[in-house]
């Protein structure tokens, strides 16, 4: 089971590329809503980043066999969006219940982020890219892990900059909040373009 024309990229290259040169937040501009809203505080940003890494990797691992072993043989690719999003929502709900039941200390630090992750674009985006680019299972695991680490990295850097800015900055009143976040994100995106030479991915 798997794609007919597999992607030739090596898993390790995918991992590095998805963290740095093809960062999902700063190059593909996905996952922006939490990126803007949750990056006010460094600690919350770290919590959100770790939850996203966990959920994205898990849902990609679940969705790959569902797409290639069930939907493709059944010629039901048309409903793939619906299936992916339901699987994501169900996984998040299940994780929330499990954490509440078995790891109450974790509930306090990560539980509040889980419902928000359902509507985070990058969870669905990883599933769509995995289908679009014909990744095999190993590539999917590395790609989804790398992508979510890249997103977590971006939001943590952003939160750190914003916390510093709050102490020293003198931002015009109209630009405060979302406006200055966009400007910082633009500068960060420039900085990440500096990685472009280290790896080439077609």
């Amino acid at each position, binding site marked *: 089971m798997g794609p007919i024309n597999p992607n030739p990229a090596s898993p390790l290259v995918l991992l590095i590329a998805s963290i740095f040169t093809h960062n999902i937040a700063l*190059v593909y*501009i996905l996952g922006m809503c939490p990126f803007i809203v949750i990056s006010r505080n460094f600690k919350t940003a770290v919590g959100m980043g770790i939850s996203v890494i966990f959920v994205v990797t898990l849902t990609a691992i679940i969705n790959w066999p569902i797409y290639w072993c069930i939907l493709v043989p059944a010629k039901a690719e048309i409903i793939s969006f619906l299936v992916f999003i339901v699987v994501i929502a*169900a996984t998040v709900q299940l994780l929330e219940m499990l954490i509440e039941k078995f790891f109450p200390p974790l509930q306090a630090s990560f539980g509040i982020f889980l419902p928000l992750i359902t509507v985070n*674009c990058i969870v669905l985006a990883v599933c769509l890219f995995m289908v679009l680019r014909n990744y095999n299972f190993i590539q999917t695991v590395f790609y989804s892990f790398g992508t979510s680490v890249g997103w977590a990295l971006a939001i943590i850097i952003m939160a750190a900059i914003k916390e510093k800015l709050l102490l020293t900055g003198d931002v015009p009143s*109209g630009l*405060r909040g979302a406006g200055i976040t966009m*400007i910082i994100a*633009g500068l960060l*995106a420039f900085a990440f373009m500096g990685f472009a030479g280290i790896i080439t991915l077609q």
Partner: protein
Amino acid sequence: MPKKRLKRSFKQTKWFKVLTAGLWQDHPTFCMVLGICSMLAITNRIDNAVAMGIGVTFCTAFSSLFVSLFRNAIPGRVRMLAYMVIISTFVICLDRFLKAYFPPISEAMGPYVGLIITNCILMGRAEAFAIKNSPWLSFLDGVGCGLGYSFMLVLMAIVREPLGFGTLLGYKIMPSAWINWVVMTIAPGAFFLLGVYMWIFRTIAKKTET
């Protein structure tokens, strides 16, 4: 003066207020900072921006309508899942429609059509408005928000396309000595432009954050 009074009463009807709230007062991008992802990624060409705007308006309007129709049947605990199913149904319709009738646009937008599902505007309107209001008003609210969003998409594209490619809707408008600002076609240009737009809008509307 009967004509004037008629006009005022028209402007004060509830459905007119609901429709226009999304266009200015509760504009989805500026006031609620929702749906940024597809906005930044898709607006480097005007035709993509228009297609995306129409698509989002269609999906918001009909998903709000159907959420509102089923609002008494949806149990509170699983309502998120119910919204997701309703929204993704309409996004699948849109995706198939674009693939069948506008293949080049579908190609250019790639996975961003599917990502309308996780566009926060749809979920936000369902949760904030449609679940509590009658179907007709929810439909209008969806149309208003969708149009406000499309307006913003076009506003972004109208700056990015001439500066980045030197063209407008595919026609060359810049003088031949013009050197394309490649930065406007990729992510950093989009971030800067939206930041500047937010600054202008919030200063005019006097909606500032502390």
